[in-house]
């Protein structure tokens, strides 16, 4: 009984939040132009369902495309950085510098280069999300037990053997943990870029609706963003859990 209550608690809390929100809007007679009530937002979602879906798909696609680029590039760079201390030392300051640039500042440059459209959104998503992938993959390689490396080297293993047999498999949990972070960041990047300069996507839709003073539609876009963000995070959280069971088990047994 208690367990089911606990399992369903996210549902109760979400429902409760919407109820409080609805009640506050009605009782305090809040102008829907400032803060629309959930019922009005639901109405807007129903009314604008088709355009909302269309723009949601654009955002989904730019996010996923940017994220896929980030994973491919991040894994390769992470393996290179984790391979050699010299490369690690050399690239580290460059990467820190790059990562500390707020990516919003890059969007106008991307727009100049590639024009308004999906490309800047994809690239912003990519730029903002590859860093955690690189760092995690490199960390996975760098934290290899030196004694295990000794065991293999005394058998005549080449660096490539050690990478393939130990390094790359052991980065797996680090990689999957970083994917959860990266997908969220990619989503932020795509929406930011769409808001600044695009002709499609949820960010664009909300910016348009805002300038037309259609507050319920703005909030409807926000709801779609929340749903999409949660869904993408949940997918990768699940993948993470499925793929890296051994990492959780072995850390449990190491403690005992």
């Amino acid at each position, binding site marked *: 009984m208690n367990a089911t209550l606990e399992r369903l608690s996210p549902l109760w809390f979400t429902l409760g939040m919407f109820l409080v929100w609805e009640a506050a809007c009605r009782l305090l007679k809040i102008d829907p132009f400032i803060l629309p009530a959930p019922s009005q937002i639901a109405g807007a979602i129903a009314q604008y369902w088709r355009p909302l879906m269309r723009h949601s798909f654009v955002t989904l696609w730019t996010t996923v495309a940017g994220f896929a680029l980030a994973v491919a590039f991040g894994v390769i760079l992470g393996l290179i950085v984790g391979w050699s201390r010299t490369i690690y030392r050399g690239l580290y300051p460059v990467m820190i510098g790059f990562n500390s640039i707020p990516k919003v500042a890059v969007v106008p440059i991307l727009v100049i280069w590639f024009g308004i459209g999906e490309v800047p959104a994809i690239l912003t998503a990519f730029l903002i999300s590859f860093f955690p992938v690189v760092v995690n993959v490199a960390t996975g390689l760098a934290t290899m037990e030196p004694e295990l490396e000794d065991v293999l*080297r*005394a*058998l*005549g293993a080449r660096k490539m053997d050690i990478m393939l*047999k130990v390094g790359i498999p052991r980065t*797996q949990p680090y990689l999957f943990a970083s994917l959860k972070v990266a997908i969220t960041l990619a989503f932020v990047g795509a929406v930011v870029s769409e808001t600044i300069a695009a002709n499609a996507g949820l960010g664009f839709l909300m910016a348009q609706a805002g300038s037309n003073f259609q507050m319920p539609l703005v909030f409807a876009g926000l709801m779609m963003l929340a749903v999409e963000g949660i869904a993408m995070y949940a997918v990768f959280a699940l993948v993470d859990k499925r793929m890296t069971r051994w990492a959780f088990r072995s850390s*449990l047994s190491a403690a005992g």
Partner: protein
Amino acid sequence: MDEAQGVTGFVAIDGVTLAYRGASGPVTALSGASLKVARGEFAAVVGPSGCGKSTLMKLVTGLVRPNQGSVALEGRAVDGPVKMAGMAFQNPNLLPWRTVLDNVLLPLEIVEPHRRRFRAEKAKYRAMGEQLLSTVGLDGFGQRFPWELSGGMQQRASLCRALIHEPALLMLDEPFAALDAFTREELWCVLRDLWQKIGFTVILVTHDLREAAFLADTIHVMSARPGRIVASRTVDLPRPRELAVCYEPRFTALVHELRDKIAEVRQA
């Protein structure tokens, strides 16, 4: 050839000095260390903590190069990783994503000629692995994962991994240090039996003088850092040895003698 080795030793470390580049200046780990181990001999190395025992293991396997002196294996100078030594450490270091059997078979995926044949003759190698696992009392655990095994069982698997490719040289760096007394004595017997059956050469680093006395043919005592071998003592207890030998007066006397020697070098 064999006679020549009788003179020079299967493992021959001669006047080796080695300094690490530490964070705050160089650390001399070994200074003028010399050691000979004959083929098939069971040698133990004991000494105070930090005296360079692990460093000695790395030298023999070619993982580090001496600053001075020479290291030779089978009469040939060691000038890179040796490509054949089995090693096991205090930490079993099994790969958690592989089953116990696949962990044990790992060296075969690396060492020639097994490496080339591994895919084609997988069934044969798996049978070999299962066989070895059963000799250390792990039959039926091949398909389990390392985390499903106790520390002692993991250490047995680690020993199997060190021996699966039938190395001529087995290097053990405090392999039983983290185990309880009963498990440790059990594994002494496992190691003794494997050694007697297969006949590889062993260099065992240990803090446990009883372990050294029970298992070894020769015990080498190292000085405090910078380390060198200050005494070598032949153990003349008859073989095969049973655990009961540990309670005989001559065994106790030997352990006391070693203890005094270590106390002496720690003072110096």
